[in-house]
């Protein structure tokens, strides 16, 4: 175990372990002086690094290998005519990338994906936080309310989309309901409004995720903190704003990140709601990639599209990770 790669893994694991020992030490009181000074605990020497092997192997097989194959595919003129000899199909360099950017709806799809995900996130954040705060203190029936809140989250995407599609039919239950109060909207599943349909259903399906993570953040607030702020005479808003919310920063940043990735990657929802070909207002990235691959059979082009979208997502993701140091999370709410 002396290769560069294993060294890197070891270093990362060491710093993680030292953090763990620091947090434990803050809870259990000062450890023996010598150990504290060297910052290398007993547990580090016998770290079972071999346990990384199963996970690492799986990562390699199901993520790294396909990723490399996908990148290779994106440089090939791979379609139904060349599929049979695909490894040796014509190498065309960056042509697929050029075509994807210049003469396919890729950029439009990127814009749609990002804006829809952001909108859904912006709405779900306050919803989730409010729900978490509301169910933080015990009251009669809290368990039931908490379970009900999780329903949208545990339902499979396919089911959610099918039910909403049925409700959004022309002259369906949504139209009739709104008609009762005198509101007459246009089509939900075709035309410009589809974008808002997608945002709406996404909000419905994903706010419990924010709620869950906000709840976990709230649970980590020590009892003493509540007591202290009560003694200082903080009113509820001030208490929320200055005492509780800092605790939520970590979990909610994580929720934001995961939520955005999930929305941008969401294929099932738009596919089941709108079908293929999708109305041009909801031709989001996964749908476009799917159509290019499995309707037009342009596997190379679609691999290029997928790769571009991977890069597009990876850049802000990387910047964000560096900025909030999520990879260095200690305790939620800790100042960084």
């Amino acid at each position, binding site marked *: 175990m002396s290769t560069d790669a294993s060294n890197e893994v070891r270093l990362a694991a060491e710093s993680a372990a030292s953090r763990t020992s620091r947090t434990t030490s803050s809870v259990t009181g000062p450890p023996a002086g010598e150990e504290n000074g060297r910052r290398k605990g007993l547990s580090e020497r016998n770290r079972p690094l071999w346990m990384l092997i199963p996970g690492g192997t799986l990562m390699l097989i199901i993520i790294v290998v396909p990723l490399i194959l996908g990148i290779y595919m994106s440089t090939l003129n791979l379609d139904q005519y060349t599929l049979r000899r695909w490894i040796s199909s014509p190498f065309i360099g960056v042509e697929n990338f050029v075509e994807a950017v210049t003469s396919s709806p890729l950029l439009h799809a990127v814009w749609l994906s990002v804006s829809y995900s952001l909108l859904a996130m912006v709405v779900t954040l306050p919803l989730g936080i409010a729900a978490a705060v509301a169910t933080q203190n015990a009251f009669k029936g809290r368990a039931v309310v908490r379970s009900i809140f999780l329903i949208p989250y545990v339902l499979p995407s396919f089911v959610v989309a099918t039910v909403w599609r049925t409700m959004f039919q*022309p*002259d369906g239950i949504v139209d009739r309901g709104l008609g009762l109060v005198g509101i007459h909207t246009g089509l939900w599943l*075709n035309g410009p409004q589809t974008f808002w349909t997608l945002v709406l259903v996404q909000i419905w399906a994903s706010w419990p995720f924010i709620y869950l993570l906000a709840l976990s953040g709230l649970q980590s607030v020590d009892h003493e903190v509540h007591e202290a702020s009560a003694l200082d005479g903080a009113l509820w808003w001030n208490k929320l704003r200055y005492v509780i919310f800092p605790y939520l920063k970590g979990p909610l940043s994580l929720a934001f990140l*995961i939520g955005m990735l999930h929305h941008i990657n969401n294929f099932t929802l738009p596919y089941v709601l709108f079908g293929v*070909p999708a109305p041009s207002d909801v031709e989001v*990235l996964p749908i476009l990639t799917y159509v290019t691959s*499995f309707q*037009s059979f342009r596997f190379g082009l679609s*691999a290029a599209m997928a790769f571009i979208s*991977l890069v597009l997502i990876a850049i802000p993701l990387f910047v964000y990770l560096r900025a909030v140091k999520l990879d260095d999370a200690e305790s939620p709410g800790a100042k960084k």
Partner: protein
Amino acid sequence: MRFRSSTGLATIVTAAALALTACGSGSGTTGGSTSSDGKVDGTGKTLNVLTGVLPQYPEQQKQWQADIAAKFKAQTGADVKFETFASANDELTRIQTSVVSGQGPDIYGLGTTFTPTAYATKAFVTLSDDDWKKVGGKDRFNQAALGISGPDKDHQAGIPFVSRPFVMAYNKDLLAAAGIDKPATSWDELAAQAKKMTKDGVYGIATGYKDNFDPWKFIWAMAVQAGNPLVDGNKLKMDDPTVKKAYQTYFGWLTNDKVVDPASVGWSNSNAVAAFASGKAGYLMMTTSSSVPTLSSSAVAGKFAYALMPTTPPGESSPKGDGGNAASILSGDNLVVADYSKQKDLAFAYIKLITSKDEQLNYQKTFGDLPANAEALASLTDPVLKPIADAAAKSKATPFTGAWGDIQLGLLNVTVQSIPDLSKGSIDESALETRIKDAQTKGQASLDRASKG
């Protein structure tokens, strides 16, 4: 947690499947030996067959597979192992993996419109005269059903298994009440008849504008009947006036003639079937024999009949060219034998068995699909099925090109993007032209690739 760490890399997942399968160990078996009397001895061998799942008949399908496997075993001594796929997409993935790895099912069941795409991969056997003899001879099949087996008569890979031609159903009572003595044979007449029947919550025509397939079939049919086969050599003719006329006629039922339920902008075919089954429509367009069980146990039981869809194009008095034979797209299932199969003779023997007259009639009774076997088709005497059998003989193949997938998508996309206009009650002509032009450009690009492929 519903979180995928990598981005939407559907294709890459496919690539993974390809790679993994390619790494898998091969278990090649040698082909069945053929004795001088044409009998194939497959003792100890297993034939792998991949077909579509029949969601309406899960039990019956299992039973049929068990029965046919027993018969095949008695004939050749070989076992048959069935695998099913749920969607065309599943199937494509299977074909991709098998094509690349050179192993997988020996026989595939394919939808007719998917056959050109499969042919383009060159992964399936183009049958020689000798091969055709092994499946019982070309003559045993309904000749129209061979129309989409290959690019021309000498290069055919698809062996017809069943036909599923499209017809229209009509409500005999509603037609009689409106003083109509026989169903329309031209699209203009259809609209006129439909107008007579539209009143009191009843509409002349039931059709689903949001169906994933129906719209392009209407446009194709009307264009072909007007003498435009859409694909002419390497040229796509979607910007032809006949195509625009077809869209205008199809959309016009809603916007001008007002003979369809306005809610049908959100309908798929099954919604249209339901509307017709409740007695609320005179005509049900674009349906197949699979609607028989539903309609026979509905409010219109005993009151409905099938008829060929019109073959006279809008604004004309008679079909042009070969248009009279375009009552339906050529629809059904084909069987193809994998090129990599090491037991092709055994595969042909199996196909011979399931396309025999008796087996085809048996299949029709259980599942409703019409026989591709000519003799079996001719022997159908049920009057309800008669027009459908006629349609099977008057079906015309969609253009045989690997670009068809894109062309079909383009045709359908024009409808999808027009639905908001449609629901407002009028189609803007210039917007329609723009959409058709867009489909033309993309389809032509795809055809260009096909000609190079």
